[in-house]
C-alpha cells in the first residue's frame, strides 16, 4: 500500500492529522489553479476551501488506481466553475455573447515569464475568455467538453479561446518588449 493510499484510508477514518496532511500536500498546487480562474486571491481561497470540503466529502468515491492529485484538481476546477456561475460579480463577465470565430493566431511566442506573472495576465482577461482559456490550454478540455460544462456552443468556446489566446499573446509580447527595454535601460 502506497503512502497516498494509506493517507486516503486514514482520511476516510476521519483522522484529523491525515486530513491536514492531505490538505498541506495539495493546497499550494490547488490554490494556483483556483487563482487562475478567479480575479482575486480571496476568491481563490474561497474556492480552495469549498473544493477541499468536497474532496473530503467525496473521498470515498476516489479510486486509488488514479492519481490523487489529478482527482483533486478536477474537483477544484469544477468548484471554480461553479463558483463563477453562482457568484454574481462573475456572472455578467461570464456571458458568452460573441460567437464569431476569430482567426487563429500564428504566433507562438516564447513565454519568458514567471507562472504567477502569466497567471496575472490570464486573470486580466474577461471571465469568459479566462475560463475557456484555462480549461482548454491548461486543463486540456476539448471545446465540446467545455461547451457541455459551461452550457455554450462548441463554436462559442472555440471563438472565446481564440480571442483569449490572441489577447494573451499580445500582452506577453508587450510584456517581453517592456522587459527588454527595462533590461537595456538598466544597462
Amino acid at each position, binding site marked *: 500500500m502506497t503512502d497516498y493510499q494509506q493517507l486516503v484510508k486514514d482520511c476516510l477514518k476521519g483522522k484529523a492529522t491525515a486530513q491536514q496532511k492531505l490538505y498541506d500536500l495539495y493546497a499550494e498546487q490547488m490554490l494556483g489553479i483556483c487563482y487562475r480562474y478567479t480575479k482575486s486571491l480571496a476568491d481563490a481561497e474561497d474556492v480552495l476551501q469549498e473544493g477541499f*470540503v468536497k474532496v473530503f466529502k467525496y473521498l470515498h468515491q476516489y479510486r486509488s488506481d488514479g492519481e490523487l492529485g489529478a482527482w483533486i484538481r478536477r474537483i477544484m476546477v469544477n468548484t471554480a466553475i461553479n463558483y463563477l456561475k453562482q457568484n454574481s460579480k462573475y456572472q455578467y463577465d461570464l456571458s458568452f455573447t460573441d460567437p464569431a470565430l476569430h482567426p487563429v493566431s500564428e504566433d507562438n511566442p516564447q513565454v519568458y515569464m514567471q507562472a504567477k506573472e502569466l497567471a496575472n495576465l490570464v486573470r486580466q482577461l474577461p471571465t469568459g475568455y479566462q475560463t475557456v482559456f484555462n480549461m*482548454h490550454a491548461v486543463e486540456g478540455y476539448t471545446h465540446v467538453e467545455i461547451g457541455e460544462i459551461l452550457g455554450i456552443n462548441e463554436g462559442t468556446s472555440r471563438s472565446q479561446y481564440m480571442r483569449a489566446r490572441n489577447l494573451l499573446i499580445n500582452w506577453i509580447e508587450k510584456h517581453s518588449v517592456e522587459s527588454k527595454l527595462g533590461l537595456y535601460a538598466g544597462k
Partner: protein
Amino acid sequence: MPENDFEKQVQQLFNEMRLKPSAEVWPKVNNRIRKEKRRKSTFIWLPLILLLLGAGGYWLLQSNNSIPPSNPITKTTPAPGNDNADISSGAESIPKVNPGDISKTNQQKIIIEVPPSAGNADTGDNLNNDGSGSGSRASKGQRNSVKPPVNIQALDNTKQQARPVVQLPVPDNAGNNKIFNSRNNNLLSKQLIAAQQSVETRASLLPGVKTEKILNGITNDNLFGNKLNAAAETTPVKLTKKKVWEWGISGGAGVSSVSEGLFDLFGSGSADKAFLNAAPNAPNMSNNIGFLTGQNSLLAALPPPASTVKKGLAWQGGGFVKRKMNSRLAITAGLGYSYYSTNRAVGNDINNYRLSLGNTRNDANANYAGYYIGGQYINYVNRYHFIEIPVGVQWQLSKSVKLPLQLNGGLSFSYLANTTAVHYHPQTGSYYKDNALFNKMQVGAYAGLSAKIFEKTQRPLYLGPVIQYNLTNLLKPSANLSQHFMYAGLKAEWVLWKK
C-alpha cells in the same frame, strides 16, 4: 513552430505554479468537515434512535396488551355453592370461609380475601420446603375441585372503566394477612385461581408472589371455562402513524341572498328592498323608454318600484386540504367553484330593442347585455359564478367516538368570474346588466359546524351546516349601495387521501 507550443509552455508554467494559502483556510475547511460529519452522524443515528424508541413503545404497548383487559365485574358474585359445573367436578371439599367477607367500601377494588386458616385439607403435599409450593395440582393443569370460598365484589357502577385493583391478602408467617396488589386487572382470573389455590395450600407459608408463580400453570379453561376467556379477550391496538394531512373534495348546496348588512341576517332582509337600485352609470333611457314599451310619456315618467330580490339556489364544489396542528385544531384551505343565485321579477325582455338606443351612455363598452322594463311579469334569475379560496380553521368540539363535532370558521377569498345579475334603473324602472358595477374580488367570512361521519374509515366524511357572509360590498363604491352576499347551506367534505 507547432501551433500548440504556446499552450505547452503555458501548461508547463501553470503546472509548476504554487501559491501558499493563508492560515485561515485550513481551520475553515476543518470546521466544515467536522460539521458535515456531525450532520452525517445525526442522519445515521436519528433514524436508529427513532427506530429504537418506536420499537420500545411498540413493545410496551404489546406487553400491556398481551394480558387481556378485564371484564369489569359489575355486581357481587357469590361464591359458587354446589353449582360448580364451570369450575370443578372434583369431589374434594373445602369448608367455606367468610363468604361475605370482602370489603364493599372501595368500588375500585376487587378484593379476594383468603383467611389464614382456610381449609387445610390439602396442604403439605403442594408445598416445597421454601414455601413456594410445587403446585402439583395446579402445575399439572388438573382441575381444581375446590369451590373457592370467596366472594367477589366489584364495581357497582357499570360505566366505571377504571382498572380494578386486585388485593389478595396472603397470610405471612406471622399469620397476618398481607395484601398484595396487582394493578393489572387482566390478572383477575389468575387471582381468582390464586385464591382457590391458596385455600388448598398451607396459607401460613404462602407468599403472594409465589402464589402467582404456582398459578401460572393453570389455564382459564380449567377453572372457568369459556365464559371467562371470552371476557378476557383482548382488543388489539393498531400502531398507525398519525396522519396530519388530508385532501379531499367538498361540495354543498343551499340558498343565497343579498343583504345590506349583517343586521339583515336577523331582521327583515333587504332582499325585500330594491337590489342594485340606483347605479349611477345606468344607461339614460328615459327618453326612449316610452317608445320602447309603448307606454305614454307620463307612465314612463313614473316607473314602478324595484322588485323584491328573493333567495335563490346555490351550490359549491371543489377540493380542500387540511393539516392537523394538534388533536383538536386543524388548518384548512381549498379551491372551489360556487354558484349563487337570487330571483327577482322583471318585465318583458326588450333586449331586441337595445340597438335602437342611440343615446345610452357607455353603450360603446357593450356592458349592457339586456334591458327589462320594470314590471312583475317574469321571474329573472341573477346568477353569480365565483371562484373561491376558503382558508380557515377547524376546531374539534367534542371527541365523541360516535359523532365527533367540528367547528369551522375562516375567510373565503373569491373572484366573481361571471354574472348575469341585472341592476334596477330607478329613473326608467328598467333592469339592465352591467358587470362593471360589481366588485370582482370578494372577501367573506364563514362559519359552520360539521360532524365527522365514518371516522374510523380511511375516507371519513364531514357534513354539516355552514353560513357565509361576504364582507366586501358586492357593488363598487360608485354604485353607492351596500349589498353583501349571504349563503347558508349544507356542506360536505369527503377525505380522499391522508398522509
